[in-house]
């Protein structure tokens, strides 16, 4: 007899024992609000479906170890690649470019910080 529930995804957690709840709302960082907005624009335009985003999230090997917006960001990445909307190479290159931007010293006011002001 198997100990592991058959085909129970990491997301399907209703009924599992867990610890106390942090009842404080810790809100959202700006990038998380932006990530949420991006996802919202894409799903409302029919470019990705909410169901596809969920399916991609559920399939993440790291699901249990990631925070909420890390899950949703990873899921979106899976779908954009799957649908050929971006390529791995493009994504790597753009991420490298953004990392370089954040290495810019404070005095030079990185474009990202400028963008971050609402």
């Amino acid at each position: 007899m198997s100990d592991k529930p058959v085909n129970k995804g990491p997301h399907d957690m209703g009924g599992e024992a867990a610890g106390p709840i942090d009842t404080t709302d810790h809100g959202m960082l700006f990038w998380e609000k932006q990530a949420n907005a991006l996802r919202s624009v894409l799903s409302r335009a029919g470019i990705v479906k909410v169901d596809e985003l969920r399916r991609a999230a559920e399939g993440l090997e790291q699901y249990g170890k990631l925070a909420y917006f890390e899950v949703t960001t990873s899921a979106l990445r899976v779908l954009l690649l799957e649908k050929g909307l971006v390529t791995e190479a493009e994504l790597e290159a753009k991420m490298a470019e953004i990392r370089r931007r954040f290495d810019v010293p404070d005095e030079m006011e990185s474009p990202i910080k400028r963008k971050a002001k609402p």
Partner: protein
Amino acid sequence: MTKSFDIYAKRPHGHDHDHDHDHDDHAPQSETEGPPSEFEIMSRAMQELLEAKGVVSADQVRRRIELFEEDFPYRGGRVVAHAWTDPAFRKRLLEDGRAACSEMGIELEAERLIAVENTPEVHNLIVCTLCSCYPRALLGMPPTWYKSRNYRSRVVFEPRAVLREFGTLLPDNVTVRVHDSNADMRYVVIPMRPKGTESWSEERLAGILTRDTLVGVTVPEVSPKE
């Protein structure tokens, strides 16, 4: 862990009176605390690539951020406050949540809204165990606890213990009715209206209909200062 800017725990009008006003709760969080995480970089990269390809525009994303910040979080309280003051509207809200919101000029997005009412016999509580479905166009973004593993897993099998963690105690003669929002429908709780609010305006009533009361983990409170 970087601090985060929290607007969703605050009431829409005025401040909670039990915190120090000196620290600037309402300034947006600076992004300068340490380097961005890999996921932030990933998210920004995806957005910039999609903008460059004309799939989305920066304006569209900005507009959504504004709606989630300035519009959505305040709708739920208004709708339920109206239901409190207008019994016929309350009935229509219970029959068809989406249509009732529409009456008030509140057009929900994908939300197929079901309103469930608290009574002296029944207390309602909402969760989405499978992900974090939530009526975002009515209540804004869900709080971090709603999306947490511990809430999602435990509230379905020990709702009373979870309610106690939020400071909500229910006697055994009250039925706890948990709703797992697992498919197309979305939920909002109509709490019981506290005594002593009979003369209040809808705006004032909306002020005590906090997000937590509309999800069902707490009940509205009339503080002595109200």
